[in-house]
């Protein structure tokens, strides 16, 4: 039981990071971006390349594990590089595609994001192949936090603990950015009323760029986290897309703390349902959560409008 909760929290962290980016683009750019999952995949794979690059530049070519973790400082650098590159990718897609469609119907943007997601996913498959990749082959010993006789016990690896901790830290930082800085206030103003924000002197184009950068960078980090605690595969982001949407809608579109809560709820629901329905139906649990919230409270837990 406790073990399932811990697993749910790890998966929930990845979902929460991705869902925050989704909810930001959804509320500021006003469309459901089906490409968000692909930014996670690209982040994970760009970190693979960046890691190889960093290892080659620093010589050695071997990564010395950092403390109790399975990876060294090189992966941290690679993750930051991957986040920057993924943000650049998002800006490029926006410039090539979404920018030209913003004047039209919102649903045209959804279709466009669909086409872009398809192209991006298969481009990864073309460039990297379909075999799973790993950042490190180090084997980690899980730490026993709770003995076996208390609710089934709990074992967790240092990597998994780091993923949960860093996610919460990042979310706190983002919340502060949105509430305490000029950029954050401009973003929230644009989400509420773009025309009024523009009249008040907000550079909405800059806000849109900032939204893409934050959303894509968080997605890249989520992708790297998913790669640290699991495998890196071309379908990584696509398979997380349904949980991302479920989390974002559950939390209420536009609400960062809602997306975080939604991410953890969906992650926990998936994990706890595994003994009941089997691991192969994990994704169906996210769908049930989605249908449930749409039926009962379409505005989401923290949302105001539907």
């Amino acid at each position, binding site marked *: 039981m406790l073990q399932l909760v811990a697993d749910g929290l790890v998966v929930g962290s990845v979902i929460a990071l991705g869902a925050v980016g989704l909810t930001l683009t959804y509320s500021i750019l006003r469309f459901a971006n089906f490409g968000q999952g692909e930014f996670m995949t690209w982040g994970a794979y760009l970190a693979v390349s960046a890691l190889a690059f960093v290892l080659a530049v620093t010589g050695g070519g071997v990564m010395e594990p950092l403390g109790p973790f399975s990876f060294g400082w090189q992966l941290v650098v690679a993750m930051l590089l991957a986040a920057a590159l993924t943000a650049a990718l998002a800006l490029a897609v926006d410039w090539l595609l979404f920018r030209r469609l913003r004047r039209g119907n919102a649903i*045209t943007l959804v279709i466009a994001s669909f*086409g872009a997601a398809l*192209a991006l996913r*298969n481009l990864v498959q073309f460039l990297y192949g379909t075999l799973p990749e790993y950042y490190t082959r180090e084997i980690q010993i899980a730490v026993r936090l709770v003995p076996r006789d208390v609710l089934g016990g709990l074992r967790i690896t240092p990597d998994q603990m780091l993923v949960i901790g860093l996610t919460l830290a990042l979310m706190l930082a983002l919340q502060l950015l949105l509430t305490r800085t000029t950029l954050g206030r401009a973003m929230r103003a644009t989400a509420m009323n773009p025309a009024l924000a523009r009249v008040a002197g907000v550079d909405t184009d800059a806000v849109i760029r900032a939204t893409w950068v934050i959303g894509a960078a968080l997605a890249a980090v989520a992708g790297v986290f998913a790669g640290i605690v699991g495998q890196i595969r071309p379908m990584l982001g696509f398979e997380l*897309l*349904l949980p991302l949407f479920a989390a974002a809608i559950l939390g209420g579109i536009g609400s960062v703390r809602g997306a975080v809560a939604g991410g953890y709820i969906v992650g926990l629901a998936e994990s706890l349902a595994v003994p009941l329905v089997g691991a*192969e139906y994990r994704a169906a649990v996210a*769908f049930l959560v989605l249908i449930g919230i749409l039926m009962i409270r379409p505005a989401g837990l923290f949302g105001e409008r539907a």
Partner: protein
Amino acid sequence: MEQLAVLNYLAFFLVFAGIFAVMALGLNLQWGFTGLFNVGVAGFVAVGAYASALLTGPPDPERVGGLGLPIFAGWLGAMAASGVAALVVGVAALRLREDYLAITTFGIAVVIQLVTLNAEWLTGGPFGIQSIPKPLAGVLGTGFVWNLAYLGLVLAVLGAAWWALERLVASPWGRVLRAIREDELAAASLGKRAAAFRLQSFVIGCMLMGLAGALYAHFVGYIAPEDFLPILTFQVWAMLIVGGSGNNAGAVLGAVLVWAIWSVSGGLIRELLPAAEQARGAALQVVLIGTLIAAILVLRPRGVLGERATVSRHAGDAG
């Protein structure tokens, strides 16, 4: 013999193009005439294909179904099953903002894919369902003549679907659909219940997709989960967007065009690339389709044939 092979290939090509055209017509009713964004096309097609296979197939001790009913009953069952799936999704999502339908249909397609893969008692799991009966195969054999006969059947179904849709969208019902798509508030103020009309359009469109799935199942005689991957959804969307949504002729033309592009590029990849690179080539083919959708949206949003402007025949005099 050479000519026969070419003709046989052409019959094959046209059967598939015709089946895709039925799907594209269903999507056109939803998107082109009502503005509903359905991302679960592959799921509804799969429901139809499996429903018909289970109803008409021979009994199999490994799973349920295999009722051995006539093929026509299988088609009706396919449409009913897809319609019920659409009803469930539509009731949950259609009363909300429009992109929630996109997300929900995406979700139902993922779930249907999971069921086809894992519910072995129902769907045969990853190996799918074999020996789905081919209509009149006992009389015509399974060679060229049968392919040609099936082509005739597909074209007849396509023609019937076309005729029914043209009648529907030209009827007062179709006018209400377009009115809702253009301005829901105005339509509502004239006393039209937008939600009910949307739901009807969504369910009818999905029933056509289910019928297309059944057509596919009885042509190939074998279905498996990998026949209904999300790529199918993208193909049908590409067909509608290339051909021009809001126009039934556009939907059919797009189906033929995109299927031709897809077949030719697939053939080229098989011919030109060594065996080891085939998977990468297939990935590139999908990149092509994704880019095609995006490029047409930016460069020619109306598609090859756009929607015909429908103006009342009395409007000309006033101007």
